[in-house]
């Protein structure tokens, strides 16, 4: 089980809800993924357009836990405001703190992320900060009381996969709350590697939404996360420099 705050989830795959080709594909992908946590962003309404189809309204909210993000925020104050707006909906008490500090790389601003996390924890939110793979920052975020740490595998939407497995492993080893590898996942194997490293979950969006077949990719991600988790629990064999035969060397039937 993946335990975050007072929540308990059987799925370790968290799915973003942006950039799908259409709602039907998205709904199918979400169902097939088995995800129980869905991320959302908070944006202004178009007040002059009454009929604004919204994915949220297609969901059975009893089946999913909403994880609004603070995307768009560049300061702690902006992130806190977005989180409070989301909570005022009465639909959620979790938030993904996302304070971007660089437009090119979309890497988080560590100082503002820390400030926003501290403030939102004081306000009683269940806080999941999105962070870089900075080991010390991850520790500081945990010390504040974060309910999960979400280090990036690589830049958001880049599909580069896990570019720094060593630092991710350091973070995973030192962290007692769940570590959810967020952002940069491109393929099912990337998700599996994250889980094999010992991550407690994977959050991805573009890898599914932007795939040629998002529904198939959603299933691939589900299976990859499960396989990675099983593999991690089973414990892999050590790497060796030399070959070791799998078949017995005795009793060869040769003349």
């Amino acid at each position, binding site marked *: 089980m993946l335990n975050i705050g007072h929540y308990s989830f059987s799925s370790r795959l968290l799915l973003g809800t942006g950039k799908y080709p259409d709602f039907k594909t998205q709904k199918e992908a979400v169902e097939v993924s088995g995800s129980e946590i869905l991320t959302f962003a908070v944006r*202004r309404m178009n007040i002059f357009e009454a009929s604004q189809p919204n994915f949220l309204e297609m969901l059975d909210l009893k089946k999913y836990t909403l994880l609004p993000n603070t995307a768009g925020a560049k300061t702690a104050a902006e992130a806190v405001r977005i989180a409070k707006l989301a909570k005022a909906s009465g639909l959620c008490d979790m938030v993904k703190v996302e304070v971007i500090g660089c437009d090119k790389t979309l890497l988080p601003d560590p100082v503002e992320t820390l400030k926003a996390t501290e403030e939102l924890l004081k306000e009683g939110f269940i806080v999941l900060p999105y962070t870089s793979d900075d080991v010390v920052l991850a520790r500081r975020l945990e010390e504040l009381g974060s309910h999960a740490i979400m280090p990036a595998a690589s830049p958001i939407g880049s599909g580069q996969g896990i570019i720094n497995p060593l630092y991710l492993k350091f973070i995973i080893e030192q962290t007692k709350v769940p570590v959810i590898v967020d952002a940069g996942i491109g393929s099912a194997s990337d998700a599996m590697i994250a889980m094999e490293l010992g991550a407690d979950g994977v959050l991805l969006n573009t890898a599914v939404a932007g795939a040629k077949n998002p529904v198939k990719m959603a299933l691939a991600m589900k299976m990859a996360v499960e396989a990675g988790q099983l593999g991690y629990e089973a414990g892999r064999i050590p790497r060796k420099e030399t070959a070791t035969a799998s078949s017995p060397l005795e009793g060869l039937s040769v003349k």
Partner: protein
Amino acid sequence: MKLMINGEEVMVPNSLQSITDLLKHLNLHDQVVIAEVNEDIIDNQKQRETQIKENDKIELVRFVGGG
């Protein structure tokens, strides 16, 4: 009555008294809409009792797809 909604000046009937009235007027009442009035974030269950008046600065936001 003149309101500033999402950064735009909007004229609405004077008969509107609450956020709930405003959302009905805009035909947005069937959706999950979160309101902020003069920088005060309003819990959705308090939309009915939250009064609006001339020149109020109102933000109306919702959940959209995101990662």
